[in-house]
């Protein structure tokens, strides 16, 4: 006998939102774009929905999908609500007090027996400025070394820029685009990665700017601009050097600026002397005429802006490439003036000093760089880890990283969700989401905006700020060093950092769009850096060749770290990751909507697909020296031949249940010694069905 009622069809599919909620203003803390948010909150202070803030002058109410996906992460099934302790492989709920006692006791134990170097932190941007400050105070008090997002995101860029200009930060707000005549976007699909702020480029174009995109892929950004230059992956440095060569040869640089404000120009000229456009054309695949035309455009269009992206930062020859393009901006005099300079999401504003009395500071007894960390994990040198992030997915050679973490004696994970890294922890602590904590949020427009707390913390979730203070108290450390709340934390940070002392919480609150930094005691904002053409380098000038740790010399990506020594006959393709708008690293995958919008795939040129005997939707296995991954194929003419592209947002411990793509990238850094590489790595591929699956 069948049924006469089908209850599942009786409920409604859509429940249009009634806008009854209390609307609170906040700032998105996902991609460092700094978009203003309006968050609708219900009576029990639960976040209902996220909208764009029309009063924010930077995003003007517009938004990319990421912040709207948050609600599902906040109250989704993966969210951690209570401290958990692993007992016989299973997590059991414990109290915060018990958790803190265990952690404090373990920490003190390792500190005494194995030294401060045996305890390491892995933190990303969980929480916000309050958590960050508390962590840095805790680190100073315990000598704990921290690995933030630098090695996987921006270290090379920051180091090169700091060496050249004296500051690693972006020099120009994106909003300056409307004053620019030419905007050079390189290795940067900002239409996807900074979608909420993309309107600035459109406005710039309406105001007459020419926007040029240089990328191996015909990206969404490339679609929207005046000129797209397709370049062979990893060869941007050659293009940059040829542009320098042409500008110098044709004397199109700003002679006065070069003379007065830069150092090492002659050496620079020498370094690019033989880097002719013919040579560059051969390397980059960009026709010589195009290179020459671009050089002419650069030479004649001032002011011009540069917006480099991860496409030239997270690569194995990042250092020299960045050096070339930033030197190009420098000799053209495109620095410090409206509509010139370098746009980036790096918002360094200096460290707060003297937060801890000198006698209480503990120096880490061992220093390691990010690469060395792997070995230290494997060799058991590291006894205890604090994780706030997902290194098992976001660090290269993820399998090795996971194994390393699994081998550590005691792992504490302060997290929103039970992700791949949290699953390896001994103690899991529930973290507040950034919407549940106020704090300072900087953005791509070089502003500091005060992010208001909107929702109440979920269940027993705690901020990193509270966690480290309470832990310090359990460990008998001087608690008085720690701030008690986000406002106090900012007050502490501001008053201990002369660069931002003028930026009070009140001022941020009262200024729509926030306050440009640095902002010293006199309260003057700095819309763009170096407006006075004074550079905080040793020479006070732009050091065109940086600190010489990186040579301005083109290096073939196939010969650079990660690929050097690999046989191209065995690994004939290149493998890279590229981002999509619906995801920010691995954070958004806990939203069902995001998972529905984006399913992992690998992009192939049609001829590559023919070579590999796969068609659209078929599964392709991609193998590198460190791992292998199976992904469905998407055939497209928008990617070059012999290069495979996928996206870096998926992991095992989420609805995707896919091996994180970083497991295919070796532990390799570019010469600048900063960034890990997650592009242009040699790989091989074959149709998965050949294995009989």
């Amino acid at each position, binding site marked *: 006998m069948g049924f006469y009622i089908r209850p599942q069809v*009786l409920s*409604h599919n859509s429940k249009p939102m009634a806008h009854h909620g209390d609307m609170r203003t906040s700032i998105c803390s996902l991609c460092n774009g700094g978009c203003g948010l309006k968050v609708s909150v219900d009576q029990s202070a639960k976040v209902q929905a996220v909208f764009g803030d029309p009063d924010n002058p930077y995003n003007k109410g517009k938004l990319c999908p990421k912040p709207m996906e948050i609600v599902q992460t906040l109250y989704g099934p993966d969210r951690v609500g209570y401290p958990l302790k692993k007992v016989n492989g299973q997590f059991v709920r414990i109290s915060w007090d018990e958790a803190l006692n265990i952690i404090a006791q373990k920490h003190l134990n390792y500190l005494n027996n194995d030294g401060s170097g045996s305890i390491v932190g892995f933190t990303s941007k969980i929480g916000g400025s309050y958590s960050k400050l508390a962590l840095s105070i805790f680190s100073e008090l315990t000598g704990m070394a921290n690995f933030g997002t630098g090695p996987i995101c921006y270290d090379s860029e920051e180091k090169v820029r700091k060496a050249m200009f004296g500051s690693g930060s972006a020099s120009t707000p994106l909003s300056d685009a409307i004053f620019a005549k030419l905007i050079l976007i390189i290795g940067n699909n900002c239409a996807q990665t900074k979608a909420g702020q993309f309107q600035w480029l459109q406005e710039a174009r309406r105001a007459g700017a020419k926007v040029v995109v240089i990328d191996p892929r015909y990206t969404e950004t490339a679609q929207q601009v005046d000129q797209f230059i397709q370049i062979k992956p990893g060869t941007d440095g050659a293009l940059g050097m040829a542009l320098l060569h042409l500008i110098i040869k044709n004397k199109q640089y700003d002679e006065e600026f070069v003379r007065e404000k830069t150092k090492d120009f002659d050496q620079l000229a020498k370094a690019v002397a033989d880097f002719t456009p013919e040579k560059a054309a051969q390397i980059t695949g960009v026709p010589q005429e195009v290179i020459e035309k671009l050089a002419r455009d650069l030479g004649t269009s001032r002011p011009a802006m540069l917006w480099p992206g991860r496409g030239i930062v997270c690569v194995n020859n990042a250092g020299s490439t960045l050096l070339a393009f930033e030197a190009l901006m420098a000799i053209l005099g495109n620095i410090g003036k409206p509509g010139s300079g370098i746009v980036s999401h790096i918002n360094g504003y200096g460290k707060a000093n003297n937060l801890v009395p000198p006698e209480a500071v503990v120096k880490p007894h061992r220093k390691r760089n990010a690469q060395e960390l792997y070995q230290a994990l494997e060799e058991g040198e590291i006894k205890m880890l604090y994780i706030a992030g997902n290194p098992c997915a976001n660090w290269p050679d993820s399998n090795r990283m996971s194994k390393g973490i699994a081998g550590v004696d005691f792992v504490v994970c302060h997290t929103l969700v039970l992700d791949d890294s949290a699953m390896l922890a001994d103690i899991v602590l529930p973290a507040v989401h950034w919407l549940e904590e106020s704090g300072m949020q900087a953005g791509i427009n070089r502003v500091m905006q005060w992010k208001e707390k909107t929702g109440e913390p979920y269940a027993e979730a705690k901020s990193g700020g509270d966690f480290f203070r309470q832990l310090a108290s359990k460990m008998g450390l001087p608690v008085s060093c720690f701030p008690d709340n986000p406002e106090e934390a900012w007050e502490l940070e501001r008053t201990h950092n002369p660069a931002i002392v003028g930026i009070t919480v009140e001022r941020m609150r009262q200024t729509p769009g926030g306050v440009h930094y640095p902002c010293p005691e006199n309260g003057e904002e700095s819309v763009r850096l170096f407006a006075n053409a004074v550079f905080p380098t040793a020479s006070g000038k732009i050091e065109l060749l940086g600190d010489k740790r990186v040579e301005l010399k083109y290096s073939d990506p196939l010969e650079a770290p990660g690929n050097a020594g690999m046989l191209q006959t065995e690994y004939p393709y290149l493998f890279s990751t590229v981002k999509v708008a619906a995801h920010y690293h691995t954070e958004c995958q806990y939203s069902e909507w995001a998972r529905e919008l984006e399913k992992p795939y690998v992009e192939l040129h049609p001829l590559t697909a023919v070579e590999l005997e796969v068609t659209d939707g078929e599964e392709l296995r991609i193998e590198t020296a460190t791992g292998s991954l199976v992904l469905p194929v998407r055939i497209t003419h928008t990617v070059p031949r012999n290069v495979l592209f996928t996206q870096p947002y998926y992991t095992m411990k989420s609805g995707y249940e896919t091996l994180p793509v970083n497991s295919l990238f070796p532990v390799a850094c570019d010469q600048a010694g900063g960034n890990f590489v997650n592009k242009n790595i040699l790989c091989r591929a074959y149709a998965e069905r050949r294995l009989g699956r």
Partner: protein
Amino acid sequence: MRYLIVGNSAAGIFAAETIRGLDQAGQIIMVSQEDNLPYSRCLTSYLLGQEIPEQRIYIRNDNYYSETGIEFIGQNVEQVDARAKSVLLANGEKLSYDKLLIATGSSPFTPPIDGSNLEGVFQLRTLEDAKKIADFVPNVKEAVVVGAGLVGLKGAHGLHELGINVNVVEFAPQLMPLSLDSEAAGMVAGLLEKDGYRFYLNNKVVKILGEKNNNGGMTVSGVVLDSGEQIACQLVLMAVGVRPNTALVRDSGVKVNKGIIVNDRMQTSVEDIYSAGDVAETYDLLWDENRINALWPMATAQGIVAGCNMAGIERRYEGSMGLNSAVFCGVGVISAGILNLPDGEGQVFRAAEPQRNYYRKFILRDDRLVGMIMVGEIEGAGFLSALIRKRVKVNKTVVNQWLTDKISYQGYFSEGIPMGKVGQ
């Protein structure tokens, strides 16, 4: 949540199943005067005529109540106490509820005719009625059916199937005055007369005659008609209409007109009391007023809507309309909507071929199909009843074609019939 459902026919069981589907944990109590499994009243005449065995009259299987987790109580509900949120059963017991559904249906109306209390006078509504008649018929040769509505004719058919001569008395000048026009009714009458039925139209029974039987009681021996004519018979089946069973809500505050008045969520005027089925007076989308459309499909649809709203899912009932389907001597007869518009209103399309029992009539008002009758080839009737429900303008050329052509769904065609604004 404690749901109490009074009545275990169409509206009651569909409501109960809906609630069960939406709220697995809720307590569902079903109370009915008839202490048995849910069965289809529409099939009682089939049972009477021995066209189906008794087991087929049940529309749910033997373990229905236990499988669906419905507590069943075979008691009559005497009174609803809305203030105390409870009902009083015939056995004096009180049952409380959080949500109450009244789906008590209706009962045959017995006109005050002299002799209507005689042995051999029956009505046919419940399973018990059918069984009683079945027990009585061995002594019957000649029967009189009072009322030629659908119920009367189906009852007559049941008796006729048993080899009894059937005489049908109808007050109106035609058969099924509420669901057919005179032309179609004439066609049906012709069919049945050929089969041996006798009709007394424009007539009524004024007296039922009786004679002493062996048990000392009085048994039917015939009827006297208004015309003075007498018909000798051993059985009288009264089928002159039904009245909603609203007695249980008197003094409860639940507003009653002819039936219990409900809104589009099947809520009565009293909170947490819902009503559905033949007892409820619901919105009629063609007449644009509340009416009782005591029809199986309406009862189930209302039951589902009531169930949803009781279980917390807001759903609206679109409204009912008249719809009837019957088969006479193998000829299907379907009618829907408004059949008789006042003179000068609307437009009528008609085709009749009596020799092959074929008749079609389409009634349009403001270029919208509002009613139809089909006798004979009835395939595709559903598309027309849907068009009536949809209330959209129709193309008259196509309506004209439908008089003779096959009727088929038009929605796939770009110049599809139903266009323009929905609604009146």
